[in-house]
């Protein structure tokens, strides 16, 4: 394979590129499908294989089905509190108030929600959801399609994209962003996984909808494809990442396998027990108990294990008890997790409890954006956006989840902001917005890492470096963190970088070369891991999902803000949180208990 450059690769020109074909990417493309703008969804897998397909519990939204008095302002309060007060309140307000419209839209698109007797959408209780601004007890606000809501949502979105004639570049892998001399994003260089053909995909607007990066950890609920590709590309291009220390460890991942067992189980009445059969969450969160925020539940489980009350031979997990719900409820409302449990834990929840352990699940951090999905760069105000670049979904940090995400809010985030970005881009491009062309050397620069891999004749093996990376993250940057361990971790990562820069691509073939794909994914994983490690070390407080033994308290005086990681200097800055919603008064920070 000869060295790739702007002259020997072809250029495909679009108005908009959506990188990633999951829930948020497909909602963006759906919005643009009718706009007349030439849009392409660039997805490294067939869109319905995207990780959105695994989402189980539901989409949280105040549609007032289960409770006719439910109010989006209560949902907003819950989300702000859940974020441990660094969620941007204008964005949260937007998401919660626009929510019902987005959910009814999905319903009309054909999403087969579970229904109540009177035909309304079924809503189940979920963690951190309350009535009357936390004063009225548990709320049932998460709209569900059994326990496979994400599956239903993703397929519904794909089907509607088919209906509207959206254009897909499936199994195309975007490698790096192309920026012009003005530092505007003008597209990506990408290759067809099937044929190996490389092209410059040129666009006036590039939307990163590439999802999360849970595969930086050894144990995760995430799919193998969650490798933070969009973030990797952004970080390599000098674009900052916000709140990267905030990783959610979902309380109930199946012990050993890592597969997710939805919070919906606890919503339907299941609860966690230790080796003594005690429902320990009664001690840690007397009111919400097992439906406290996920960060609270995960920490409680780890504490139980550390104090010797864990289950199993190695006392290294706890149990999720569901048998008291009865076979009928389990089969009707939680059929998916019954299957998962039998397959991966050899346990039938109708009879026995499921062994579970906190497992890396969701990336609250990401590319900082406003509610239109416009990405921000490092600047004196940190509020200047980068022309040509947008981000939506888990890859973005709007931020609606702050330091901890509530269950069901991710699916809502996808559709609300996917739509918002689509609307904005449509308007912006039609009123003359756009970017200048990139020069030949800009494109050549974006091909650098691909060329280096293709020309490698020796170096480190992809799978072993990946394992090394995952072990460092798992051991030093898990549920509980400590300064000295994290420093060891940061230093270990610095050593790994040398290997990342010198990977040996053993398979150099063109057609469906997964070795090449995995090598680039590893490079992306590394960027995300380093951003996570440095951000975690430097945020000297505990907040939301970021819990430190050496700084156990929340420090609003110094840290009531976002963290902003600058990849060019590998340093952490701060960025203001928005406390100016438009329709309601901001919710002031309070001590966070459940």
């Amino acid at each position, binding site marked *: 394979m000869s060295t790739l450059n702007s002259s020997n690769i072809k250029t495909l020109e679009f108005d908009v590129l959506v990188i990633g074909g999951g829930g948020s990417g497909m909602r963006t493309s759906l919005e643009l499908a009718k706009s007349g703008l030439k849009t392409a969804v660039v997805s490294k897998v067939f869109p319905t*294989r995207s990780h959105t397909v695994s989402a189980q519990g539901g989409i949280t939204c105040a549609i007032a089905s289960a409770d*006719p*008095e439910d109010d989006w302002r209560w949902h907003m309060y819950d989300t702000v509190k859940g974020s441990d007060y660094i969620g941007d309140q204008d964005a949260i307000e937007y998401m919660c108030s626009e929510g019902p419209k987005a959910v009814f839209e999905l319903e*009309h698109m054909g999403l087969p929600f579970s229904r109540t007797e009177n035909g309304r959408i079924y809503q189940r209780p979920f963690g951190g959801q309350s009535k009357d601004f936390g004063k009225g007890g548990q709320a049932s606000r998460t709209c569900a399609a059994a326990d496979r809501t994400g599956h239903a949502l993703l397929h519904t979105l794909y089907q509607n994209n088919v209906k509207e004639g959206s254009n897909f570049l499936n199994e195309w892998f975007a490698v790096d962003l192309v920026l012009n001399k003005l530092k505007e994003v003008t597209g990506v260089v990408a290759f067809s996984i099937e044929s190996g053909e490389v092209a410059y995909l040129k666009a006036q607007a590039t939307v990163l909808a590439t999802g999360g990066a849970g595969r930086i950890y050894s144990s995760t609920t995430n799919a193998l494809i969650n490798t933070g590709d969009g973030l990797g590309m952004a970080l390599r291009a000098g674009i900052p990442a916000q709140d990267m220390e905030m990783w959610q460890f979902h309380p109930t991942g199946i012990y050993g396998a890592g597969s997710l067992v939805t919070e919906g189980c606890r919503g339907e009445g299941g609860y966690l027990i230790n080796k003594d059969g005690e429902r320990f969450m009664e001690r840690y969160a007397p009111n919400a108990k097992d439906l406290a925020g996920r960060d609270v539940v995960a920490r409680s489980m780890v504490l139980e294990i550390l104090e010797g009350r864990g289950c199993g031979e190695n006392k290294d997990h706890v149990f999720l008890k569901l048998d008291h719900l009865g076979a009928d409820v389990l089969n009707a409302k939680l059929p998916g997790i019954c299957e998962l449990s039998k*397959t991966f834990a050899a346990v039938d929840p109708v009879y026995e409890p499921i062994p579970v352990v906190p497992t890396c699940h969701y990336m609250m951090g990401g590319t900082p954006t406003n509610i239109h999905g416009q990405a921000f760069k490092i600047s004196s105000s940190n509020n200047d956006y980068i022309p040509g670049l947008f981000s939506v979904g888990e890859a973005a940090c709007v931020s609606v989840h702050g330091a901890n995400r509530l269950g069901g809010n991710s699916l809502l985030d996808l559709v609300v902001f996917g739509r918002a970005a689509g609307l904005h881009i449509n308007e912006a491009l039609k009123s003359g917005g756009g970017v200048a062309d990139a020069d030949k050397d800009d494109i050549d620069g974006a091909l650098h890492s691909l060329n280096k891999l293709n020309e490698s004749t020796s170096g480190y093996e992809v799978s072993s470096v990946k394992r090394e990376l995952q072990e460092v993250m798992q051991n030093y940057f898990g549920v509980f963190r400590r300064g000295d361990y994290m420093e060891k971790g940061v230093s270990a990562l610095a050593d790994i970088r040398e290997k990342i820069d010198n990977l040996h691509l*053993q398979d150099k073939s063109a057609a*469906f070369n997964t070795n090449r794909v995995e090598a680039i994914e590893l490079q992306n994983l590394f960027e995300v891991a380093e951003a996570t490690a440095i951000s975690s070390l430097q945020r000297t407080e505990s907040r939301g999902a970021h819990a430190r033994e050496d700084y156990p308290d929340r420090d609003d005086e110094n840290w009531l803000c976002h963290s902003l990681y600058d990849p060019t200097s590998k340093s952490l800055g701060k960025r203001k949180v928005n406390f100016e919603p438009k329709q309601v008064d901001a919710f002031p920070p309070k001590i966070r208990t459940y």
Partner: protein
Amino acid sequence: MQTYKFEQPKRDIMVLELLNQLKEKDPTISYRRSCREGVCGSDGMNINGKNGLACITPLSSVIKKNKLDLRPLPGLPVIRDLVVDMTEFYAQYEKIKPFLQNDTPVILVKGSNPRKIEASSMASMNVFYVPVAQQAAHHFGGILINLLAQPLFFKPTDLLQIHATPKQLKDFKIYLILLVFTDAME
């Protein structure tokens, strides 16, 4: 056919895990995979003659006489190793118009702040919640709302959402029975 030798692992693993282990030794083996929990469908393949998902097929259930045969899904052209060309499959999927076909359009009618009025048509379902008090009459400006379904219990502070058929909206024949109901309910 390429043959690989492996030691049967002590604990039962899924076929996908085996493939991943083989790939560590031979990075040129190509197959699709993603969720590894049986929901995405990526790793469909033919395992000892039977089609299935590699990630939820335990090795113990398919090893026969110390042998395991892995082939790409039958009936589709092979791109490489266990990867088949799904183009034809996806084309057929589009042909059956795999989306909800509902010709009653969604109509969103916005009223003025602060009482947002949203109306959308759902073929057979007409639901609303609660009407608002006197002010609603002004915002409607004489537009009447037709109550077609069981009214839920009302409260003056709640949002009004009306669902009506397109014809009704088009004709703007909406009856303001709401306020009357409110009084009656209270």
